[in-house]
């Protein structure tokens, strides 16, 4: 019994120490830096100021925020549209191949996402696999420009982030009670109504979890717009990187990270809130 307790405290303590050292302390430092003034020689200096946050309300920064939300939003939507039917089929699959398919979804994670993005270049570029194939088959006579535009950025993001959508959706759909679907059918609902009234609401938590897992990294994976999009626009990830490394404006870079974190936290809170309301409704 005593041993059990020791183990409990030990594992709790490791988690907490881990969180404190690698999460709370760094975040505290970032918040602290975001409230300081900019200084060339010492990176940050007193006095405390809110100037950095005021600066972030300039139109150019708002534009960068909106553009990042837009690109991330579209990628999330595509991931959802592609991932939902896939996850549904996978979750309902009875075959022994199911394990293999899940493995196939996970395998890309074994390689660094940076390397996979470079391999996307090899596929999409002017002398890449697709263009060479189409040219040699005589289907096209000029290479199709598929890279260095918004489309290739979105292709890259969707490719990198799709598993984050599929996996939570799949676990959610697996738990779906078949009897509810049968009941709906017995009561005369057609396929579309069953999907809309039963399956969709019940898989909503999985969809939202997937969307959050895709949306957050989509905003900050700065190397994908750089590599696949030809670095033609600035997204939040690039903005923060430039503020730290090029202009050496650590306070502004910190403030940008904090604003991003707050926006994302608000989104998650809204989701949690809507879930809680739902539970109350269910009780009624």
């Amino acid at each position, binding site marked *: 019994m005593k041993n059990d307790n020791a183990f409990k405290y030990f594992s709790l303590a490791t988690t907490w120490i881990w969180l404190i050292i690698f999460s709370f302390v760094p975040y505290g430092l970032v918040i602290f830096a975001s409230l300081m003034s900019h200084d060339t020689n010492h990176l940050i200096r007193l006095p405390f100021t809110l100037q950095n946050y005021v600066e972030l309300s300039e139109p150019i920064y708002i*534009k960068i925020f909106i553009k990042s939300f837009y690109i991330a939003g579209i990628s999330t939507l595509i991931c959802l549209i592609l991932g939902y039917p896939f996850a549904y089929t996978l979750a309902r699959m009875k075959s022994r191949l199911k394990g293999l398919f899940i493995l196939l979804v996970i395998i890309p994670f074994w390689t660094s996402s940076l390397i996979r993005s470079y391999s996307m270049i090899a596929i999409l570029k002017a002398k890449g696999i697709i263009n060479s194939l189409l040219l040699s088959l005589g289907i096209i006579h000029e290479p199709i420009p598929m890279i260095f535009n918004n489309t290739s950025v979105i292709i890259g993001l969707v490719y990198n982030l799709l598993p984050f959508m599929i996996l939570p959706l799949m676990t959610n759909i697996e738990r779906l009670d078949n009897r509810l679907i049968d009941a709906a059918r017995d009561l005369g609902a057609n396929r579309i109504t069953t999907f809309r009234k039963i399956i969709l609401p019940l898989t909503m938590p999985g969809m939202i979890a997937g969307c959050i897992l895709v949306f957050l990294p989509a905003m900050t994976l700065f190397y994908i717009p750089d590599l696949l999009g*030809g*670095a033609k626009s600035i997204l939040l990830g690039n903005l923060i990187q430039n503020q730290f490394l090029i202009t050496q404006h650590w306070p502004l870079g910190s403030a940008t990270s904090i604003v991003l974190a707050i926006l994302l936290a608000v989104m998650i809170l809204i989701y949690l809130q809507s879930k809680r309301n739902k539970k109350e409704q269910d009780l009624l």
Partner: protein
Amino acid sequence: MRALLISLILFFSTAALADENILNVYAWSGVIPDFIIQQFEKETGIKVNFSTYDSNETMYTKLRANPRAGYDIIEPSSYYIDRMRRQQMLEPLDKKQLSHYKNINSLFLKTHYDPEDKYSIPFIWGATGIAVNKSAFDPKTITRWSDLWKKIYLNQLMLLNDSREVFSVALITLGRSINETEPKQIKEAYQKLKELLPNVKLFNSDATISILIDEDATLGMAWNGDTFKASLENPHLTFIYPKDGFVIWVDTFAIPRNAPHQTNAYRFLNFMLRADVAKKIALDNNYPTANLAAQNLLPNSIKHNPIIYPSREVLKRGEFQRDMSDVALGVYEKYWEKLKMGS
């Protein structure tokens, strides 16, 4: 708990006591080949801890954030030497310990970034010009930066993904210095660049060589060393030193202030200055060397190649990038963001 504490103390103290015959080198990636480091270790018996970075900013930020990082040799570019010497981050060099110092090409000495050559050893250099693929465009029709604004190059150009390099193109075209710090002139350059934007296909600084080889871009800004390397694979490539001027940079070796192994650092510097060593490096990384003795040892096909070793006359049109205040850099960065966001 006590065992843990003791092992922790032991761990940190061995790290602190490890003051044997070592040298900590922090250099640009892709500049010093591994076999050169091994040759140095073999000849001197000094163990080298070799780490690399891919931008001056990364190196600078690391040393700023932790001045006792323990590096003995760093490799800043010219304008960072300017900044770091003014911020007293570098050791003055004792040239008496460098018997091969005379090998350096005098073109790269007595420069504004280190007027008395007190802190830096020029090592490799490069220039930013225009790379042209002959199978796509006639190189004779492109002689100056202003040619890039022609309507026929719609969605064709590659530009370096570097705010100051790109603004230099506009500043040169407007007849200004590439080291302009007046917000009004920088704004003018920004407006000029906005007119160039429809011609821009992509911005890239790290993969320019493969982009040029694979013809994903057939015209654009590039460094002479990169274009030379790409031209070895794709013979259609050529390089133009624009008539209206161009940016020139030098990567140098320096010893950071309070470096722990300075004696070894001098041995390393002198080793790198040797003509035979610098020649081997030049043959390996294909960047133009600032070591004249080494340049003379290179095969004719390289030392007379107009892409990497242009005539002195051409080189005179080059202008060194200078360091500027964070405020001025901030102005550039603001307009760079505006340019990319198309507002």
